[in-house]
């Protein structure tokens, strides 16, 4: 009789706090849970009664790693509520800023959080000795992303210059030109990461699910478009609740979501599956080199999809900078006329689709907020992946089993600290 008891308290190398619990006896699973134990932050309560001028600034603090995504979704929601159309210049700058965060977050996940699993170490720190060039490159790429965000918004973590209606300060064109060559150099760095990633032994596991992401007719969607389901097509952003369908399950510790199936996936692989055709050429080449084809149903390939997106983000950023340099930038009138109303903003945070939904009174004071973050949408899919995977590997030694389960969770790059609706159930 073999008893398996896995209890990973606080899975490491992810943002926030979560546990994996598995109990099995004689090959039968008695208990298997992915639990979220993050402290409730109560942002939706804290946003109530705030002026629209402070809302994005507070909402940014939901998450330290995807604060630009939260800021952008927040500002969009407010703009939709007030009936404001951002200018073409604002959209270009927002897209470039968004790319900076996508790049930083993906590099952090691929090289700092996921790579140690494949290289057999417990963190990035021992790699300083064994893979010094890779670590230096990762730090250089992260610094590039920070610098690009600083140029556009004053700071990467909790951006300063993003306001409802546009930007409070415009970047210097000379500095934008200067950073362009560093982005070109980054493309060469990504090639090195591709070579490294080709050596990663990625677990062979397939579970088809529903993929949900933004989709836009003209671009690989990050900050605009409709909500695309691989099963059910496009839903307008304003009707996001029809897609997310948040619900509670008594034995679970997280608020779950589902749409057409039992669960759905958001994030880099969902975007890749839904929007592959719109990736820029270097990204498509990288996907080919890495053996990633749409649709891909292996969640361990999320990390590979992130690497493909790094190419896209760099290539797209070069194009955006060229466009901005060609047209120049001019000071715009960012004065805002408030009105009562409701607005929904949706963006693709690095980990997947993110919604902010606000209602304002006629003084521009927020009366109600709802934020649905990507990691919460993935919790249910992580749980289903574990349920599908565990029976296949239950006969493995316990430490290998544990490590593989941790890798599933880590592949999703969960950002648990921004789980605005995490649920900690205490069963008495």
């Amino acid at each position, binding site marked *: 009789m073999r008893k398996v008891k896995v209890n990973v308290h*606080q899975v*490491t*190398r992810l*943002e*926030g706090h979560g546990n994996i619990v598995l109990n099995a006896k004689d090959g039968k699973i008695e208990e298997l849970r992915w639990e979220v134990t993050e*402290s*409730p*932050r*109560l*942002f*939706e*309560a*804290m946003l*109530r009664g705030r002026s629209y001028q*402070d809302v994005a*600034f*507070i909402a940014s*603090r*939901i*998450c*330290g*790693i995807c*604060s630009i995504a939260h800021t952008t979704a927040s500002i969009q929601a407010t703009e939709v509520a007030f009936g404001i159309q951002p200018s073409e210049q604002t959209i270009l700058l927002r897209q470039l800023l968004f790319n900076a965060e996508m790049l930083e977050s993906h590099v*952090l996940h691929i090289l*700092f*959080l996921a790579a*140690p699993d494949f290289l057999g170490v*417990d*963190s*990035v*720190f021992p790699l*300083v000795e064994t893979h*010094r060039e890779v*670590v*230096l490159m990762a*730090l*250089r790429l992260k*610094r590039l992303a*920070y610098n690009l965000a600083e140029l556009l*918004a*004053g*700071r990467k*973590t*909790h951006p*300063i*210059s993003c*306001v409802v209606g546009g*930007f*409070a*300060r415009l970047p210097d064109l000379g500095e934008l030109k200067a950073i362009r060559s560093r982005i070109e150099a980054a493309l060469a760095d990504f090639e090195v990461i591709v070579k490294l990633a080709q050596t990663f032994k990625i677990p062979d596991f397939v579970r088809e699910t529903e993929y949900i992401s933004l989709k836009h007719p003209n671009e690989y969607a990050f900050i605009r478009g409709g909500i695309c389901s691989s099963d059910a097509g496009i839903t307008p952003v304003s009707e996001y609740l029809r897609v997310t369908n948040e619900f*509670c399950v008594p034995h679970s510790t997280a*608020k779950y979501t589902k749409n057409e199936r039992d669960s759905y996936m958001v994030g880099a692989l969902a975007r890749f599956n839904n929007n592959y055709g719109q990736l820029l050429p270097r990204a498509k080449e990288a996907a080919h080199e890495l053996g990633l084809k749409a649709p891909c149903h292996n969640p361990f390939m999320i990390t590979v999809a992130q690497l493909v997106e790094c190419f896209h983000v760099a290539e797209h950023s070069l194009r955006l900078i060229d466009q901005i340099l060609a047209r120049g930038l001019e000071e715009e009138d960012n004065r805002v006329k408030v009105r009562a109303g409701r607005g929904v903003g949706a963006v693709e945070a690095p980990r997947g689709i993110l919604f902010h939904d606000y209602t304002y009174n006629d003084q521009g004071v927020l009366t109600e907020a709802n934020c649905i973050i990507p990691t919460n949408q993935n919790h249910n899919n992580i749980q289903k992946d574990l349920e599908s995977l565990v029976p296949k590997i239950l006969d493995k030694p316990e430490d290998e089993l544990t490590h593989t389960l941790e890798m599933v969770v880590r592949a999703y790059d969960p950002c648990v*600290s*921004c789980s*605005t*609706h995490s*649920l*900690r*159930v*205490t069963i008495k």
Partner: protein
Amino acid sequence: MKPKVAFFDFTSCEGCQLDALNLEGELIDLLAAVDIVNFREVKTEREENYDIAFVEGSISRESEIPRLKKIRDQAKVLIALGACACIGGVNCLKNSLPMDEALRIVYKDDARYYDTMPARPINAVVPVDYYVRGCPINTDEFLKVVKALLLGKKPEIPNYPVCVECKMAGNVCVFDRGMFCLGPVIRAGCNAICISGGRFCWGCRGLVDDPNVDSEKDILKKYGLTVDQVTERFKLFNAYQEVAK
């Protein structure tokens, strides 16, 4: 023996820990000087034996109190990392509501499953040796503090208002641009980054030790602003201090 360093987080966005790692060659130098033994966000193995503890986040659940006390007992030096740990930060915005109401707004009928209490800075629970301020922290300042500790010196954090650095940055005064600013009473060290970014000071580094409140009031009067307006903004990061007063 290299000193052992640990990072811990409580209720926060974890952005300060990430910004502490926004280093290039300095990271290599840092790892040559210290052993990072506990850093859940980026590292699997954990060691319960450490000399220096950096703590991010505010305390907002009963269960966090014993955990923080244990860290305090173990660490020779305890440093608060970022606004949530130093002054309570944005988490304390919920303190103006009864906790059950705040929970009900977010979780509706499921509110009973949650455990929360008014948020507070870590020095409301244990003594703190040093503070790395800001939301988020400034990476250079973090490095400065680490260097000072390694050299056995007391880290020097500015105790003058943001206005000093803002003048040096060459900014036009926020009040002259038709907005208002907390810069005259808030502790510097950020190089007035928010004002340089086209905005105003939100107060994330907390008050200077002896704020010149009368002078702030004079400025407000001169520009036709009220104390209430300023207090509302001050509360974004300093709601805990505001209540404590």
